[in-house]
């Protein structure tokens, strides 16, 4: 029995297996947003269809669900009904869609066909998406009544996830 080989091998084995075990169950796509617990960046953008300007500051006093999406994004189609239903069920929460790198005609067509329970604004040059550090669509920010971001969700959101976020801001 070669003790040197055994002890070196044991150290390497233990270290590697421990590290990899700790890594199991971690979602590498999840990136902590530095914006959580910070004030939501301000913006004023034009609403699709009406052209009215919506200012995020005007929603102060009400929790806001801010959803970045686009018509060319498959997962956004998936979560669209979830957002619509929840928006209808929770009039006390302001939902707002921000469309990212898209064209107005396509958005209008999409909303006509799939329904819309809340306003959607166009992020013209992507400035708002940059301010919110959006890495891809869909991404959803949950903002409390004081205008502070409490959570960020990457990817399509499910009914259960959205409910648990809302429970947090409606408490």
């Amino acid at each position, binding site marked *: 029995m070669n003790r040197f080989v055994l002890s070196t091998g044991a150290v390497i084995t233990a270290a590697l297996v421990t*590290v990899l075990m700790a890594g199991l169950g971690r979602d590498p796509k999840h990136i902590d947003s530095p914006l959580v617990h910070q004030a939501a960046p301000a913006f004023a953008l034009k609403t699709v269809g009406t052209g009215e300007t919506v200012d995020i500051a005007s929603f102060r006093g009400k929790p806001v669900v801010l959803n970045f999406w686009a018509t060319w994004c*498959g997962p956004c189609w998936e979560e669209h009904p979830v957002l619509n239903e929840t928006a209808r069920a929770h009039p006390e929460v302001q939902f707002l869609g921000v469309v990212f790198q898209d064209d107005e005609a396509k958005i209008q067509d999409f909303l006509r066909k799939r329904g819309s329970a809340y306003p959607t604004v166009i992020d013209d040059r992507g400035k708002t998406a940059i301010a919110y550090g959006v890495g891809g669509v869909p991404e959803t920010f949950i903002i409390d009544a004081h205008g502070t971001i409490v959570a960020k969700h990457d990817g399509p959101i499910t009914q259960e996830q959205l409910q648990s976020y809302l429970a947090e801001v409606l408490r």
Partner: protein
Amino acid sequence: MIATAALGRLLILGALLVSTAGALLGFASGAKRSDEGLRWSKRLAYAFGALMLLATLVMEHALLTHDFSVSYVAHVGSRSVPVWVTIVSLWSSLEGSILFWGLVLGIYIAAATRFSSRGNEESMPYAIGTWLACGAFFSFLIAGPANPFLTISPAPLDGPGPNPLLQNHVLMVAHPPLLYLGYVGMTIPFGFAVAALLRGKIGPTLIRAMRNSLLLSWIFLSIAIMLGGWWAYEVLGWGGYWAWDPVENASLLPWLTATAALHSAMVMQRRGVLKGWTLTLVQASFLLTVLGTFMTRSGVFNSVHSFTQSAIGPTILVFLAAVLIGSVTLLALRIDTLENDGRIDAPVSREGTFLINNLLLVLFTFTVLVGTVFPLVVEAVNGKQMSVGRPYFDSMVVPLGVALLFLLGIGPALPWGRAAREDIRRALLPPIVGGAALTVLGVVFGARNPWTIVTLFAGGYALQVTIVQLAKLRHSRRSVGAYVIHLGVAIAVVAIAISSTMRVQREVVLQQGQSATIGAYTVTFTGTEERSEPHRTSSIARIGVTKNGRAVTTLEPRMNHYEMMREPIGTPDVHSTIGGDLYISIASLEPNRAGLLLIVTPLVSWIWLAVLMMAAGGVIALVRLPRMTPLPALRREGSGEGLAV
């Protein structure tokens, strides 16, 4: 049809049964030295290969006939994708890729059983036992946690098709299978190493079988790594070919240890030393492929390769831990019985440089391994996310790479064994001319980065040594292959140094009709085009390219929107010449305005060609099987592999 899925499951269960029985029988007949046992283990090895082949054919049949009752087909199949995409869908997603893995393993095991047996009769039972134990593990994965043959009822009418990134470029047809051939192939030398350790000795026929199988995997792995880099360059749009992505690193790690093992095996053969060390490297190469499989398949690392999170992560981790513990225990128990027959008596000698080469390659391996798993350590310790980026890898790896390149020149110039001081000087001085010549040439063409200049010198030195050795040709034919590989390595390292430090990059925003210049090129944005395909829509920018006033080509970089993806994927377009590439990708695109990334990179194509040259050298070394001439000083023990080297 439900029968298809059931047939597939039956074949995999058969493979599980056959491999488990064969593994047990192999080890038992090795211990009892039973010829009858060996005959039956061989039959079971062939049966395992045949069952895996049949199971894969059943899956391909289901894919091609769009049999959506089979879970994997429902998951990756689609009626709207071309036939070639349907065929390669086999390895486009987790379950199918593990089945494909099983197929490659089955073929390897059958071939190794058939072609390596002669002269290795006493080691074969253990080797077959080891291979089939791995076969049993993969059959278990396919039969259980990653089963592609589940039945879906009622069957859907159509499926989503495979991951769009895989449909983006034809290189994706070649990269995964070659990588699997490289990865899975490491199982074969591992089996021989386990056999050598269990028997406590290793003779020339076993060394040869181990080296050849290692070399074969090394060739496939080299091409696969290159194709992966090339694909990243052609498809991903950031203009580079290597990002130190965890999964790229995963493919590099076993390549590094296999390269080290190929060299130390030569010292083992020639001087009768480094036996335990060579076997350790062979085991490490296999273990690192298992680690690589874990990295790609567990969803723990973020990369272009990450498959969805799945239940097979823990299963592969258990396998990795078991193989690690088994290997370490076996090494600790047996390494001292592999007594050295010779010794290295001169530090400044061919074998001396082999030792340094091994040391550097192992250091290289550790550097990359640590950089790859470090983010996991940090997150486990304090919950903070971090990533280890290019600066770490570059600052660690560049000096190691340059040192290895120097050795590649010095080593072959030195004779084996002790040499007179005068001979050493005569061997080492002349190539300085080659080093100086390439350095001057590089500086004339604008090389200023100190590391690039050092690389040019080391590269020129190595090239002169290699070419002189090739011209002599008094060596065994295997040496020809080895020197062709060295030539490829020297060219590749120089091309990597030049292309990564001398590229020119410019970001421009052009209105329709406007031009910009980069290097000798003038690019003109002539307009956009929208193209719809069933699985994606593309916005294309048309760019006219002229060089010194002459029209050269029209490039069409594009942004692709896939239904399945959260963000658009840009596909660059490249104008390649032997001197360098013009590379254009889109940053933003509006009907009459394009934001473009323009890159001119010298010598990129040389990297691809140099790696192909390395592979060709490997094939020469492999195909022209050398006659092993045992050195007269060595003693024989019985027949065949009893010859202790």
